[in-house]
């Protein structure tokens, strides 16, 4: 009996450790971009705009510039922010899951690593959504499906122009690119 209990506990610990170690890979994904930094950003931005479903760009952040302002260097990072009111609205309406607004707007990170390659980092919206009940799971599943479209590149189309956000004149806290409202 004692041996069976010990085996059960060891099994749980092993599963827990495996889950713990795999979690980062499950929650986030990373892939190499076939394009340079700016072209990757531009192609994703244009894919977002062409996806429909209420998606709109809501910002483009450059955290590396902030580090430079502080006198340091990091390799380039650009974060595309996008939002769809179609998906954000049901979550923001429901008090029990409103805290998930912390995940808004949807972010895609494009960065260079020391191997000189450009990478695209995304969150696994589908898996994350499943943790918060059926409604969020359904919404985030749709977000995940659209996210795949954002990262579908057609090398035969010419490189589009990168969209740099308009800086708000004053007071506004988020640069708007035309209706990323709700996020």
């Amino acid at each position: 009996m004692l041996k069976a209990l010990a085996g059960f506990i060891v099994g749980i610990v092993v599963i827990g450790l495996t889950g713990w170690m795999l979690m980062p890979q499950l929650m986030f994904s990373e892939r190499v971009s076939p394009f340079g930094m700016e072209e990757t950003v531009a192609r994703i931005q244009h894919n977002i705009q062409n996806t429909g479903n209420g998606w709109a760009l809501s910002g483009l952040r450059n955290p590396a510039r902030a580090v430079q302002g502080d006198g340091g260097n990091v390799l380039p990072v650009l974060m595309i922010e996008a939002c769809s009111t179609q998906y954000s609205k049901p979550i923001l309406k429901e008090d029990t899951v409103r805290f998930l607004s912390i995940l808004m707007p949807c972010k895609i990170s494009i960065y260079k690593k020391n191997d000189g390659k450009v990478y695209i980092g995304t969150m696994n919206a589908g898996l994350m959504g499943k943790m918060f009940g059926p409604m969020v799971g359904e919404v985030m599943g749709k977000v995940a499906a659209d996210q795949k479209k954002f990262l579908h590149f057609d090398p035969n189309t010419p490189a589009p122009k990168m969209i740099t956000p308009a800086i708000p004149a004053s007071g506004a806290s988020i640069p708007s690119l035309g209706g990323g409202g709700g996020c």
Partner: protein
Amino acid sequence: MFISTTRALTLGLMLVYLPISSSLASTPATTPTAMPVQAAAKAATHSTADHSKFEALKKSFASGPEVTQACLSCHTEAARQVQKTKHWTWEFMNPETKQRLGKKHVINNFCTAVPSNYEFCTACHVGYGWKDEKFDFTAQENVDCLVCHDTTGSYRKLPGLAGHPNYQDMEYPPHSGKVVKAPNLGEVARNVGKSSRANCGACHFYGGGGDAVKHGDLDSSMKNPSQYLDVHMAKDGLNFTCGTCHATAGHDVPGSRYAPTASDEKHGAHMRGKKDVNPATCQACHGTRPHSAKLAKLNDHADKIACQTCHIPEFARGGIPTKMSWDWSTAGKLDKDGKPFKLKDSGGHDAYDSKKGDFKYEDNVIPEYIWFNGKVNYTLLDTKLDPSQVIRINHFEGSPDDGKSKIWPIKRFTGKQPYDMVTNQLLIPHTYGKDDSSFWSNFNWDKALTTGMQAAGGEFSGKFAFVATEMSWPITHMVAPKTDALNCQQCHGANGRLDKVPGLYIPGRDANPWLDKAGWSIALLTLLGVIAHGGLRYLMAGKRTHGEQE
């Protein structure tokens, strides 16, 4: 209480947010003019002469040479000094390879070569009037003092004027609608001073035909760099000028891309003014064991690794991308109206220009690393080439075993340019000119190559094609703060920075298979020993318990 906390939080968030968002909007200035630093220069100057009080300068001037004559009335030897330098002759005889180099003789894979394009290229000559082969290199009034000593920022030498500034207001670039004001030469002459970063940068930041194009570690962001970009030249730090390292004597500026000092272990730190020693190396100030006792292990790297390798982790970090490739073979396409056109890349940089072909730009570039001993061999006009291979326009020599080489970071610039299919030699195109044969006027390669080769005194069979070429540029500026130097893991880890450098054994990255096998065998035997020992003890203990019970 709650309200004030919320306000404080909101304010805090805004303060965090604003620098990030505004950083996206801030783009460095890209005009090739010196900064208007007249007031600052005057305030900071230690000069014992106020040129505005000089009688010879208290007048208006109609041309650059007139100004030079006034300068020479006091600085009697200055022009003769300048005329001995590479900045004037555009010639350099490499004592080791015996190759005759200098802008006058080399061919590169950017704008290619000077012959037949003098009026355009000599915008960066320290002289006036070099428009063809007949230029008088002995005339002292042809020396341009102002280009190096202007402090007003109003003096520019535009391409196409054979080294003269524009004496009339001029639209530049042509058809752009932008007007470059003619400088007030008298005002410029009365405000001369020591050369600033902007003076040197007016040419060296724009090499290859535009901002940041050629070097990768020199661009207009270095005019007033921040600490993160260059610890030596930072405007809010040491504020070095170019001349602080390239300590000039008799107008001769030390430092060379034709014969660089790859290793300065012999001389180390030395006093300024010592002859025949390059004062612009890192070791000239920092010595050969530059790290403190606490980091002494790093000093053991210094005999094989150039300082730049660790301390310039990336180049083109100032927000201005550098050109990484240039394909001349696609130049000459015209739009449906028969007009030349340009295409931009995603970042808004030229990706195609009918006049020049296809380009690729990149910023924050991770350098390539090579063994380099300071010897550079050039492919010149008379060098025979194998068009099936990538032609190295300048071949950096070096090896892990020659005792002279260090591992250096470089920018590798690739391209395609014309060569003669019969003679197997590089060709020089006549690109700029108001005549019918210049490529930028008629987009006819045959005419452009015929005229270019005639001017260069070379042979052209009439049959040409394009060959893949590459150039190497040592990376030595844009020194990052020490906290941003490469860390150990970036070389000693898997897929490290030095993976493509031959002849290296790097602990942590590399493995000896026999040593590894021996180590694993010992570990396995130890594990087996522990299991056997434990098992035996367990069995023996069981037997003892069983015996006692009986």
